[in-house]
C-alpha cells in the first residue's frame, strides 16, 4: 500500500512526508511499547502506535521504519515533526483507535510482521 492509500483508508492526515506519498509498505506492526518494536528484524515496517513522544521517532529511526501512523487521535509536537523530517520519516495522524486502524489496514491488504 502507498502512504496515500493508507491516508485515504484511515481518513488520516499526512503531517510530514507529503512529497513521499507514493512510498510503499507491505507489512505493519502495532505497539505502544518501543522495546518490542526494537526487536523487529524486518525493514520498512509501517508502525501503528498511540505513543506520541520523541522516543517513538527515535525508535523508528534506529529500526529503519520509514512511516509511522499515530492513532487514537494523538497529536505530535513541533519537536517531533522536526525529528521526523530530519530522518525522512513519514508521519500520519489518525483519529481512529489502534484496533480500528489495524483492522482497516489489514482488510486493505497490509500483512502482519508475524
Amino acid at each position, binding site marked *: 500500500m502507498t502512504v496515500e492509500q493508507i491516508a485515504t483508508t484511515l481518513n488520516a492526515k499526512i503531517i510530514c512526508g507529503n512529497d513521499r506519498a507514493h512510498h510503499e509498505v507491505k507489512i505493519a506492526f502495532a505497539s505502544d511499547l*518501543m522495546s518490542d518494536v526494537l526487536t523487529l528484524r524486518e525493514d520498512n515496517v509501517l508502525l501503528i502506535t498511540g505513543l506520541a513522544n520523541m522516543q517513538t521517532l527515535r525508535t523508528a529511526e534506529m529500526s529503519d521504519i520509514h512511516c509511522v501512523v499515530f492513532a487514537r487521535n494523538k497529536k505530535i509536537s513541533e519537536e517531533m515533526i522536526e525529528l521526523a523530517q530530519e530522518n525522512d520519516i513519514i508521519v500520519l495522524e489518525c483519529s481512529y483507535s489502534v484496533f480500528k486502524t489495524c483492522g482497516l489496514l489489514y482488510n486493505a491488504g497490509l500483512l502482519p510482521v508475524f
Partner: protein
Amino acid sequence: MHFEYQIEGGNFTRAGYASSEIKKKLKQLNVDLGIIKRTVVATYEAEVNVVAHAYSGTIYVDFDEEKVVIKLVDEGPGIPDIDQAMKEGFSTASSTVREMGFGAGMGLPNMKKNADDLQITSEVNKGTTVVITMFFKKEAKDL
C-alpha cells in the same frame, strides 16, 4: 576515529541523540545497512538503559578499518545480578520509564542478539559498563 557523547539520566527527550550521531557516521563510512541497523539498535537500547536506569553516562566510540567499539560507562545503581537482567522480561523499570514506551525487559537480550560481541560489567551503587563490538565485514549475523 574517536568520539564521545554524554548521556543524561532521566532525559527521555534527548535519549537516542548519540545513537543517531553514530548512525550518521556509519552511513558516511558506507557500512553495510544490516550491520548499521544491528549496531544502532544495540547502541540505542544501551543508551536508553542509561537514561532509564542510571544517573549519567558517557559513550566512547572508536572506529577502525574493521570494527567499531562502543563503550557506555554510567554512574548509577549498577546491576546486582547480570544473568538475571539478561533474561527476557526481567525489568525494574519505573512507571515513568514504562510511560515512555520502555521497560519490557527486552533491551539486554536484544542487545545480545544484535551485537557481534557484548560485554557487561557492573558494580552495585557505582555503575555499569557496556561494551558493544561490531565487525564491518562480518557476514549477516544469523538471528
